[in-house]
């Protein structure tokens, strides 16, 4: 498989009054051509900072890339001057930001906002750009696109605005699309439309997607591979099936355990105790150890390396060390690993057409 993006040993810090916040502490991952990689993890674990680093959008000061490379083709984006980065941003790599409602300009028509990138990056004329803008609005499923290009954001509903944001991100046919929680604020129906849209576009254009979310249902729907982040590091990575059906890291177990399965109501949700570590002063050893019921002596002393589970599956936990005691995940989580969908299919259509 062709790697389109490769991040090696990335460190990003913010210098604040309280000291250096080590937001990203040695992240490694790659993105294959045409695949969707989901990045999941607790709030504050460094998902957005990682993706902003790829886009060259870490505000400096206070932020800086301390170390590491971001390989895109033969270029290292971590070293690229801002001028060069501007050419890539929005044309070869695009981003949908976490806060869609604020990423549109309220005083500019929808059409103009889509045309901006086309004129800047693709040297299109005004009329060419307008035509393409209409085409894009159609692509993202906005009805009556010809009429609506001249409207303003406030005339669109939340879901439609989010589609416009996607249209802008897709305008120049980027090779990589980074979507930072693009559906978190939306309700399920609109979320479903947007996931279908992204899947569709990927099929048509072969776009590679990094999809950041903390909704594991969305991950199961959209991802080919998953990277689980904790306290500025990737602690487990694998194919979507490996992560859901054979998770190895106790934090990944914790994530699965916090989701209710639609099947039963009696079981208690297994909340991960405690709160995330202070990134001003990350703990020695494994950062998850204080919250991990399986932590061993070594965890408070030495950080675990990534252990290989399969060619595509790695996890950073001492539990995988050959000398570690054999630990089974809790029963409730083992049950979830068998699949969380209810035994009896949910009925979508009463005509007997269960949507399974």
């Amino acid at each position, binding site marked *: 498989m062709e790697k389109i993006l490769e991040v090696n040993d990335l460190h990003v810090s913010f210098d604040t009054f309280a000291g250096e916040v080590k937001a990203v502490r040695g992240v490694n991952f790659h993105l294959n051509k045409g695949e969707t990689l989901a990045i999941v993890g*607790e*709030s*504050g674990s460094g998902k957005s900072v990682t993706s902003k680093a790829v886009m060259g959008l870490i505000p400096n000061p206070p932020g800086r890339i301390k170390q590491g490379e971001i390989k895109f083709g033969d270029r290292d984006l971590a070293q690229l001057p801002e001028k060069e980065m501007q050419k890539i941003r929005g044309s070869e790599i695009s981003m949908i930001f976490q806060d869609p409602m604020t990423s549109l300009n309220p005083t500019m028509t929808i059409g103009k906002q889509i045309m901006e990138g086309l004129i800047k990056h693709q040297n299109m004329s005004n009329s060419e750009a307008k035509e393409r803008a209409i085409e894009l609005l159609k692509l993202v499923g906005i009805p009556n696109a010809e009429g609506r290009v001249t409207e303003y954001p406030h005339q669109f*509903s*939340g879901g439609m605005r989010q589609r416009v944001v996607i249209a802008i991100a897709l305008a120049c046919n980027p090779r990589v699309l980074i979507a930072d929680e693009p559906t978190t604020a*939306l*309700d*399920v*129906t*609109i*979320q*479903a439309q947007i*996931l*279908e849209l992204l899947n569709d576009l990927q099929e048509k254009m072969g776009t590679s997607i990094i999809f950041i979310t*903390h*909704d*594991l*249902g*969305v*991950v*199961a*729907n959209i*991802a080919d591979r998953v990277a689980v982040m904790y306290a500025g590091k990737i602690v487990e990575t694998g194919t*979507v*099936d490996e992560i*859901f*059906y054979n998770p190895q890291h106790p934090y990944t177990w*914790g*994530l*699965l*355990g*916090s*989701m*209710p*399965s*639609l099947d039963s*109501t009696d079981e*208690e*949700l*297994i*909340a*991960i105790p405690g*709160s*995330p570590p202070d990134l001003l002063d990350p703990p020695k050893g494994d950062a998850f150890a204080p919250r991990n019921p399986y932590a061993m002596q070594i965890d408070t002393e030495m950080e675990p390396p990534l252990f290989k589970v399969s060619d595509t599956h790695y996890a950073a936990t001492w539990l995988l060390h050959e000398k570690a005691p054999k630990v089974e995940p809790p029963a409730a989580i083992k049950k*979830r690993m068998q*699949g*969380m*969908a*209810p035994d*009896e299919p*949910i*009925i*979508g*259509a*009463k005509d007997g057409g269960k*949507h*399974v």
Partner: protein
Amino acid sequence: MSNQEKLLEIKNLKQHFKVGKGTVKAVDGLTFDIYKGETFGLVGESGCGKSTTGRTIIRLYNATDGEVIFNGEDVHGKKSAKELKKFNRKMQMIFQDPYASLNPRMTVSDIIAEGIDIHGLASSKQARMDKVHELLETVGLNKEHANRYPHEFSGGQRQRIGIARALAVDPEFIIADEPISALDVSIQAQVVNLMKKLQREKGLTYLFIAHDLSMVKYISDRIGVMYRGEIVELAESEELYRNPLHPYTQSLLSAIPLPDPEYERSRRRKIYDPEKHLTENGEKRVLREVTEGHWIACTEEEFNQLKVTV
């Protein structure tokens, strides 16, 4: 279910907003009961009127029409300030945004004790402090947190502070408007577990508003599905998920992605077309009870058909 004690009766509740020259019928004729000790879930798409319902029940808005009866008394009919105050104590609200809903310039203990002060529930400074400490403990925080400010806490912790504030006045009924939407999954589980525990221990009744359907199913005893200001289906949660009858409910359920890749690969979504469904014939759909406790908005004809098929 029907012989359970009703804590809240909502009758033909309407909330219409004047916007420019027009009116937005945010809530348009809701009728349902909430039983003592249960969790009633309210779901539906963005803008269907869930928050407005909650806010009207607790009287943040005056209702355009209809009644809210709490423990046999009409909430909206109440006049005297004293009576209002008494009622305010019994009903509390937890808000969606744990960041915006706490005053950043107040310490945690002052935030939590605000209700205690208003209602004069503490006889001395010491009693007030004890109560605050007890509440902090109840929600899984500790005494040391009392003198800190909201910005020093994570989202999940702030939501706990919001819950402690609501509990401070010993309410019977809590309206939780998307209390976990802004939190990530692991923290959501902490807050949901806490709410369930408090319900068991204090016999609280909840109105739980959310758009995360799997969490709503998990926490609710009964669920009402709202669409464009009206309830279109209402049933016990297990029944609603096993046997959704309204096409809008079916579309909502079929749209939930579940954390199970294999299932996701084969899931098909059912799409609801209101233009088609609602204009099939001109008759207004009203809530009718198809099987015991399972209500659906339908026409007379649809009702007769459903009774045969169910």
